[in-house]
């Protein structure tokens, strides 16, 4: 197996609607920016992996439909899609395929144009047709149920969750790619219209049009392409359930198990101290509290304290979601890959105004499906 790294990333200017472009043109925008970032041309690329959410744009063969924008003309072109975790599965796919040595330089693309469909209607088609679809479906209510159970178990409040929204939205102001770039106050979050108790409009991610492209290269090429490649140290994932009723709500079992596996593999004992930055697929406010407990950053019920203490703010000991996170931008099929791109750019020192200092280790996650989790850890040092 070859060591492998991210050597270039490109993102579109994400927005609530990008009517100025078709999906293919949106994808092309991200791809050309990634090539530019890596100072490569399409001739350098061995293959293309692309993914988005099934049904979201009503186009079922996106790998072929988007070929003139995805750079795959006359190259091996593959589609990977796993629902909400699509973006992080794409990152793991890029890692696996280049680590195998069968691809040396691989272009990986995640994208979504949420403006083109009814997101909740499309998500419903991911659930079992004779059971969940009829009685419990859509993204928001599943998360609301998780939040209610978490609040009751630990006495966590809506205000605690609102503090995490304030953090992510504040970070987004410095990210030129972010969709929502206006700060919000605790009060605004708490007074926003109720969507599904206890989730209010500002507790949940927006629907975004956007694409992200990431170039992976293995050890034979990475350092020739990029002066400071973001090495992939490892990845883990857990896709445990198909029915919502089977989900174990606390701690988020899939993330808990994936994190334990990866920390053990990399010898990480105190993630809060050993990891410098995280980009988490936290699509709603409460996830920023309870899921960092699953990641081992705080004891059960104590995630909120970490948030209030500013540990995860820009300038804190472990900044989380310096990009503004998913609460500011959510082009679903791209979202997990954006997390990877943000970690990589932080390690490369190319994160612009949102750059953190001395990022040696970064962690990204993906979330989706039936409470599935993916996790990747990146490092500035070439693994031995």
């Amino acid at each position, binding site marked *: 197996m070859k060591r492998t790294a991210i050597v270039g990333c490109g993102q579109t200017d994400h927005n609530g*609607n*990008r*009517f*100025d*472009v*078709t999906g293919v*043109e949106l994808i*092309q925008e991200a*791809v*050309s920016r990634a*090539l530019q970032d890596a100072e490569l*041309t*399409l001739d350098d690329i061995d293959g293309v992996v692309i993914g988005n959410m099934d*049904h979201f*744009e*009503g186009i079922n063969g996106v790998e072929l439909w988007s*070929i*003139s*924008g995805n*750079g795959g*003309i006359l190259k091996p072109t593959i589609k990977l899609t796993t629902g909400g975790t699509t973006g992080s599965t794409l990152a793991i796919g890029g890692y696996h395929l280049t680590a195998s040595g069968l691809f040396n330089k691989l272009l990986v693309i995640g994208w979504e*144009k949420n*403006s*083109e*469909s*009814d997101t909740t*209607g*499309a998500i419903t*088609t991911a659930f079992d*047709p*004779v059971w969940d*679809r009829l009685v419990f479906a859509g993204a928001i209510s599943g998360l609301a149920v998780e939040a209610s159970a978490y609040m009751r178990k630990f006495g966590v409040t809506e205000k605690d969750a609102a503090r995490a929204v304030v953090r992510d939205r504040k970070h987004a102001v410095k990210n030129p790619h972010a969709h929502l770039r206006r700060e919000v106050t605790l009060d605004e979050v708490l007074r926003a219209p109720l969507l599904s108790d206890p989730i209010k409009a500002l507790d949940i991610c927006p629907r975004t049009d956007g694409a992200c492209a990431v170039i992976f290269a293995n050890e034979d090429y990475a350092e020739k392409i990029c002066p400071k490649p973001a090495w992939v140290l490892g990845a883990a994932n857990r896709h445990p359930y198909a029915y919502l009723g089977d989900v174990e709500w606390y701690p988020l079992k899939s993330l808990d198990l994936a994190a334990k596996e990866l920390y053990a593999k990399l010898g990480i004992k105190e993630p809060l101290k050993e990891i410098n930055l995280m980009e988490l697929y936290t699509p709603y406010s409460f996830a920023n509290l309870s899921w960092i407990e699953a990641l081992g950053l705080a004891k059960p019920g104590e995630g909120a304290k970490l948030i209030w203490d500013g540990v995860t703010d820009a300038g804190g000991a472990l900044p989380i979601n310096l990009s503004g996170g998913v609460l500011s931008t959510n082009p679903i099929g791209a979202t997990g890959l954006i997390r990877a791109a943000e970690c990589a750019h932080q390690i490369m020192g190319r994160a612009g105004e949102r750059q953190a200092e001395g990022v040696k280790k970064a962690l990204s996650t993906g979330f989706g499906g039936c409470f599935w989790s993916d996790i990747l850890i990146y490092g500035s040092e070439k693994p031995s």
Partner: protein
Amino acid sequence: MTTEILTHPSRIKVPYTWSAGETLSRFFKALRDEQKILGIRCPRCQKVYAPPKKTCGTCFVECSEWLEVGPSGTLLSFTQASYVSPAHRSSKPFFGLIRLDGADTAFFHLLGETNLQSLKIGIKVSPVFAEKRTGSILDILYFRAAN
């Protein structure tokens, strides 16, 4: 004892609104308002795309030189579908692969006022525009043999 197997009929109905983007919108507006067919040239490989593309998929550079193509073109191949499909707008439609004069790429469209006997590969065809045009590819009703 046999088990009664139940089925659950349903229908997936998700509304979509697809943007044509700026490039194709310009093409469709010219079709709707001026009954003109536009193509676009890749500055690198010089290929003329009709319908137009914002970027050339091979060269990966932006195309910006617009030009009028057609409206007549050459029939590169054709067929008639004699089976019934909900995707067909009429029964036994003719489909033609057409390359407009001045373009390097071809596209499929319907053929009308015709029969299998009179169609030949290589004949010239020209578009028949719809009276009420909405800015879609069906603003061309069909192509027919050019006189």
